[in-house]
């Protein structure tokens, strides 16, 4: 499929550019020559049926895909014009600029709420003691969790509800001050109310971060994203402004998917 690089005015500059990214596990190919741009300070949603490669794609952006011993990858991923797969790039440093939130909230159980937020900085040895309190308040505030936990910062991370845990994980990711936030179906394990709170969050985060959110919920994509990409069977079928994709899809497969004919 040809890449969709429309240049309508009012578009932000590309923060991340995928260039013919092909990836898989062992013999299985999961992504086929994906080329797309992700705009800065916008929310880009990736939708598609299960197994179409959405999660693998974002894991290729922060080089988490290669954590698996049988992972294969080809192509380039440019962050601010620099290929993150270049030999000289350290994936560890990359992941401090590109953060990730997972499907199932995974706060560190042996740490308190406060320590969880600071975990990213402590783990990488970049925490400045004096700034700690300020970092905790700022990050929890950005994740819309501060008011709920400000009096119990020493409670264990696991003592929160599911939705709160996920916001804690978001706070943890934000504390490292990344530029990009990758979210892999962050609400699929949460109830509707918790989901709504996180969706509200994304509206405020967008001003400071570039967000890529994988979701199997099309309504969610329409609610939170500026642009949406539709993946099918490892191919990028269509990438457009969200409104355009859902009201005037150009590819018949996109239309079939969003009208519920499959997936």
């Amino acid at each position, binding site marked *: 499929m040809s890449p969709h690089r429309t240049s309508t005015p009012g578009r932000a500059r590309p923060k991340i550019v995928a260039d013919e990214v092909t990836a898989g596990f062992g013999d299985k190919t999961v992504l086929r020559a994906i080329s797309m741009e992700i705009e800065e300070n916008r929310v880009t949603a990736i939708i598609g049926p299960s197994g179409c490669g959405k999660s693998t794609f974002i894991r290729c952006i922060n080089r988490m895909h290669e954590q698996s011993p049988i992972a294969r990858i080809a192509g380039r991923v440019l962050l*601010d014009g620099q290929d993150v797969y270049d030999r*000289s790039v*350290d994936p560890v*440093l*990359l992941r401090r600029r590109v953060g990730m939130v997972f499907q199932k909230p995974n706060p560190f159980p042996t740490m308190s709420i406060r320590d969880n937020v600071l975990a990213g900085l402590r783990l*990488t*040895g*970049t925490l*400045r003691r004096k700034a700690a309190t300020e970092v905790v308040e700022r990050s929890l505030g950005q994740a819309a969790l501060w008011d709920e936990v400000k009096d119990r910062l020493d409670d264990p991370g696991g003592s929160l509800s599911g939705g709160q845990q996920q916001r804690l994980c978001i706070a943890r990711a934000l504390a490292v001050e990344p*530029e990009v936030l990758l979210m892999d179906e962050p609400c699929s394990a949460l109830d509707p109310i918790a989901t709504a709170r996180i969706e509200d969050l994304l509206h405020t985060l967008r001003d400071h971060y570039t967000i890529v959110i994988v979701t199997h919920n099309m309504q969610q994509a329409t609610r939170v994203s500026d642009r949406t990409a539709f993946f099918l069977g490892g191919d990028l079928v269509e990438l457009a402004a969200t409104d355009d994709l859902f009201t005037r899809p150009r590819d018949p497969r996109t239309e079939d998917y969003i009208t519920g004919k499959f997936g």
Partner: protein
Amino acid sequence: MTPRALIRLRARNGRGRAATPLRERLIEIGLLACGALSVLVTAGILLVLAFETFSFFGRVSLAEFFGDTRWTPLFADKHVGIWPLVAGTLLTSAIAIAVALPFGLLAAIYLSELASPRARRILKPTLELLAGVPTIVYGTFALVFVTPLLQRVVPDLAGFNALSPGIVMGFMIMPMISSLAEDALYAVPGSLREASYALGSSKLPTIFRVVLPSATSGIAAAVTLAISRAIGETMVVTIAAGQQPNLTLDPRVPIETMTAYIVSISKGDTPTGTLEYQTIFAVGSMLFLMTFAMNAISHRMARRLRHGAGQA
């Protein structure tokens, strides 16, 4: 926000301590070295045994070692036939297994098939206590309590004999059999039991005709492991079985096991380099080979259990 460097610079990147890949690599090598120590230990054992045993067989021929039926390396009239020691070891081990197998197997059946969850929760860990008592305590018990007790029942039972430590060893290793056999029984799929009940069979025939046969590999693995343990046991037999190498199958007389012999020589002042010194390594090699063979067989059986889901 200004873009930050992705490339690792040699110097600090201004944002605090950066762990260099070199340090990561060094840590990985250090951890690997700790793991590789176990390989060194195995090599060490093999080398040490081989070295001294080789020297030993420079002085003593294989024919003598395996042909003679007397073991008197310290006497003026030296005989270095290994059989009395092997016989002593095998005799005590056989008695131990004769005790441990029935008790262990029946206990495993009880815990796996018959016990209520509450009984199981209490009795299973309590049984493990048996394995936690030091062997020196068992040895003392065998000599001081069990032997006099048995002397009342068994005619002509000597103060040092094979029967008493054999029985005590049996109880000592019984938890090993019961625990491993229980795992084997547990691994038998519930569907097999259900099929048996559905055919109208009751509990007992199901256990004996369906469950046990399916678990034979696992049970065999447990038994061979227990045999290995019994062969390698030292203190119980050293204290209660005696220090008289005796080629006999009579459990009522004193004997000496391979392990007890090594202890008796080590206790004294045997200068290194002498034949007496080397005998402990020759006997040790024999001991090592026997236990290794048993462990290997047990491992084979356990693998069959895992791959065949317990099919014999």
